[in-house]
């Protein structure tokens, strides 16, 4: 179950993707729609461009003082009765979560790239837990046994026809017309039962506020609301680059992320600052009112702290995972995340792969980059992605000289 990357296999996948007409068509539709939608949105609401600039500079400040922010976040989380943990590696993160969950449990997951990064679903399954993804796109990926193809639209490579066949086949149900609505309601019914009976809910985070320990999560489906509130235990995996100084700033990150993903206004923004509690009886605080009794927060490092010291790679830590760079990249539009590592792909994803997995294998993939700079231009927080990718190529050459 080792999460690894071999440029070799990636290449095979890319070749296949280029020949897959359905895959190409799905990507063409999705990226064109998304480009047009975001452009329209930003023309109508130029104040959101200003907000993105603000987020760009607050992320820069945050990364400069990452260590202090982590410390402060830990302190704040304790104050709100959450349980913070620092996981330096993938193995540590898995072990921590495995110990919390145990075995024989039902676990529901809200979309989290960090969970994919540590191979959490497979790990929990290996401990004899029943694990379900609840984001529709992730759920389809789970059924397909593939990997997320975009930062916020994991099943972007699937046409409705493909999704409908997949759901019918795997859930052994008849889907009447194979329309999108039928897929959605079938999955809703199937997952609803899993969510209300689950022992543990796992989520990621869009941002974590160091001043309060509050986690901010933005979404449209409402599965995050359910997953983080119905089960008695909530585990949030928060990559440390998501920590920002204040709750207001965390909120701004979420708004900008949703905007550049083309979802404005976002349907839901969740703020979670501690486990559910009540003091309605004699002012005595009791945890686990209607929501989770326990909130565990895994602060995931996995190469990020080191990257924050690297003059080039640290730029990626400003990333708010909006996926804009992917939808604008001429290469990604034909490959989706087949061009990338096991979790992240495309412009931002190659760099994330370098930070969290292997800079040299990621660097080899960077050779497919055109250096065209559309990603740089599109990025709301102004990351010089094409420069980072070129830098990775240089690392590949240097490594080869060392033998």
């Amino acid at each position: 179950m080792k999460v690894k990357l071999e440029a070799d296999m990636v290449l095979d996948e890319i070749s296949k993707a280029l020949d897959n007409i359905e895959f190409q068509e799905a990507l063409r539709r999705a990226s064109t729609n998304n480009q047009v939608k975001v452009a329209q949105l930003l023309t109508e609401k130029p104040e959101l461009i200003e907000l993105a600039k603000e987020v760009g500079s607050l992320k820069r400040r945050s990364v400069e003082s990452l260590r202090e922010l982590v410390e402060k976040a830990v302190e704040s989380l304790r104050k709100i009765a959450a349980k913070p943990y620092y996981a330096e590696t993938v193995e540590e993160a898995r072990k921590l979560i495995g110990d919390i969950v145990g075995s024989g449990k039902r676990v529901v997951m809200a979309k989290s790239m960090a969970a994919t990064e540590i191979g959490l679903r497979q790990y929990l399954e290996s401990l004899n837990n029943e694990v379900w993804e609840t984001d529709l796109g992730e759920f389809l990926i789970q059924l397909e046994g593939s990997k997320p193809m975009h930062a916020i639209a994991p099943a972007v490579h699937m046409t409705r026809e493909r999704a409908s066949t997949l759901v019918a086949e795997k859930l052994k149900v008849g889907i009447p017309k194979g329309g999108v609505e039928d897929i959605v309601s079938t999955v809703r019914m199937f997952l609803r039962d899993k969510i209300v009976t689950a022992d543990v809910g796992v989520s990621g985070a869009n941002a974590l506020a160091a001043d309060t320990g509050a986690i901010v999560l933005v979404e449209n489906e409402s599965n995050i609301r359910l997953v983080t509130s119905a089960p008695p235990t909530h585990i949030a995996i928060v990559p440390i680059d998501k920590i920002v100084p204040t709750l207001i700033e965390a909120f701004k990150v979420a708004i900008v992320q949703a905007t550049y993903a083309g979802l404005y206004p976002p349907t839901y923004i969740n703020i979670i600052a501690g486990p559910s509690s009540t003091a309605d009886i004699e002012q005595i605080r009791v945890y686990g009112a209607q929501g989770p009794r326990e909130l565990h927060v895994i602060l995931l490092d996995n190469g990020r702290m080191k990257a924050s010291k690297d003059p080039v790679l640290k730029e990626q830590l400003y990333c708010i995972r909006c996926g804009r760079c992917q939808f604008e990249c001429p290469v990604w539009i034909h490959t989706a995340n087949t061009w990338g590592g096991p979790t992240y792909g495309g412009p931002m994803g190659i760099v994330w792969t370098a930070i969290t997995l292997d800079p040299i294998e990621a660097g080899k993939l960077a050779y497919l980059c055109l250096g065209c700079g559309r990603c740089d231009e599109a990025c709301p927080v102004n990351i010089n992605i094409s420069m980072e990718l070129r830098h990775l190529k240089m690392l590949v050459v240097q490594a080869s000289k060392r033998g």
Partner: protein
Amino acid sequence: MLDPLQIVRVVEENMKAHGLPFPAPREALYSWAKPLKMPDRGSPMLYTGGLYQITPYIMSVVDSLSKFEDLKLISVALKASRLLSTLGLSGLVVRPRADTVSYVENILRSIVELLRKAGVNVAYGYEDDLYSGVLLYDLGLDELFKEHAVKVYKALKSREAKTIITVDPHTTHIMRSVYPKYVEGYDLEVKSYLEVLAEAGLKTEQQNGGDVVIHDPCLYARFEGVIGQPRFLLQKSGFKVLEPRRSGRMTYCCGGPIEGLAPKMAKTIAKTRLSELSEKHGVIVTLCPICYANLKSVSDDKVKVEDIALLLGGREL
């Protein structure tokens, strides 16, 4: 195994052997200039950096690589080919097509004539019009690039250049925005000929050039701020400039930069762009030899791809 290092090695070996990234004769870079009798030192100096001239050679290498549709096979082919062997280098000939060679040479001549008409008489370094090293930088061969950049800079200084006038976006970008970071004391002023012409105010007799759709090259549009100049010049020369869906700062790449590594992908990208451009009009104007080569290679006879220098110089259509 995706092994970009094979390409890296080909380029490295070629550079070391004869100062060019692909096997091409050195004279290919400056032989076009002889009839124009430009002074061989002074400023402003035309510096081509060789990209236009080596494009026909790149096209023919890519052509042979394209036979291997599968990315993996390209690696195998490269391994087997003599491109990789240092010993085989001197004997290896990449034959460019004569028509593409004369096409790019016409472009360069047209540029010199346009500059002259605008009152800018340029010097030219002939044997010292060295390859800029763009590809070394793009491939991450930083050490070799730095070494080469210093050589190029010295050669230009030895010819008394103070201002250099470049002819393509890649060379403009590398000389203006990258060299200063790699070459100590770098003090050349760098201008694209399009910027020079726009400043000088192009004189033209042409009245009705017809409609053209413009394809902005990424490096001009996003990195060097050359967007208004080509439009201004085309309009002054009597052309009506049409904009594709994605243009200016959000222009869309022609796929060219990865043509050597992944020709199939490069072609797919080129096709996407070509159809977007030709939707607007059948005459596409390019500002870069790589864009020209890539768009041209996927076009049929319903569309015409033309370099801006030929349009401005009234040499085409």
